[in-house]
């Protein structure tokens, strides 16, 4: 059945529900994108035939494949987005320099996103509390006293 690879990506991420960051599944993402390409090409052929030869009986099949395309897109984007939420949390847990073990779990593109996020956060923190700025990632829990 279509979209099996896509749901596997989501399940893999959902299993580490505590927010830990599993390795980026490059191969899984590529396979889903390949399935989407194949679905789209089949649909383009059938849409052309439905139009030029009046094959309206193909419309349910075209709809079926389009549902699968939308499903694959939802899974891919949610997989990538949830990983960004985990990576964002790392900045608040570990500070701006991540342990290498965590960096190895991230793709190159995720590292670019993370560096940009750090810059945005730093710009925001400099805008707080007068000249020195304010590090809002410190003292997230009340001091013992």
């Amino acid at each position, binding site marked *: 059945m279509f979209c099996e690879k896509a749901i596997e990506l989501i399940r893999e991420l959902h299993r580490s529900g505590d927010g830990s960051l599993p390795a980026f599944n490059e191969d899984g993402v590529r396979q889903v994108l390949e399935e989407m390409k194949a679905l789209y090409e089949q649909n383009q052929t059938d849409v052309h035939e439905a139009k030029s030869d009046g094959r309206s*009986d193909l419309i349910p099949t075209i709809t079926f494949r389009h549902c699968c395309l939308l499903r694959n897109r939802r899974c891919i*984007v949610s997989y990538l987005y949830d990983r960004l939420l985990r990576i964002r*949390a790392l*900045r608040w847990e570990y500070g701006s320099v991540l342990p290498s073990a965590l960096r190895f779990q991230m793709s190159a593109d995720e590292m670019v996103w993370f560096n940009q996020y750090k810059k945005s956060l730093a710009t925001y923190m400099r805008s707080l509390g007068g000249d020195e700025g304010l590090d809002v990632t410190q003292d997230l829990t009340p001091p013992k006293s």
Partner: protein
Amino acid sequence: SEAYMPVSAGLGSEENFLSLEDIIMSHEKLPCRLEMTLPRLGFLDKSGESDSIPEGTKMELPLWLAKGLYDKKRKIVSVELPKIYKEGWRTVFNADANVVDLHRLGPYYYSFGCQLLNFDSPENPEIAQTLLQTFVGRFRRIMDSSQNAYNEDTSGLVSRLDELERILFHAGQKGLNEFQRWEKGQ
């Protein structure tokens, strides 16, 4: 980690596009009947002899696909109720919802049940009523057990709970543990 805030599941018959919970829930299967032939998709059908899946075929489709194909005008599929939402089971739930193992029957009994309201079944009002009654009927026991299980193995307490109830139980446990730590000045 505290700072990780996943996109939460949608409420009622809504789904949140980016919610992992909703994506996994919407993969649960639904008994459907094809109201139109699906040419060139025969390879998807178990028998798989012919090139197409003929009209009238009964098949279990994931919720996300049933929702996509279920169009009020051009109905490609019609949807039947999964048995635990039918009248027979509704009577059991209304009698005493606490005796039911919702994890085995679900595990997305409530959220999947709310999704069924997207298909205009004449039994929708009864389904909605039973979902609500079941939740209310089981809530008390979930709240009590989550508030009284301190520093003990809770797997027995959650084994028969549906996913939504487990989230509720863990929220109660979190509050209890934080209160205990506060009392000890931690």
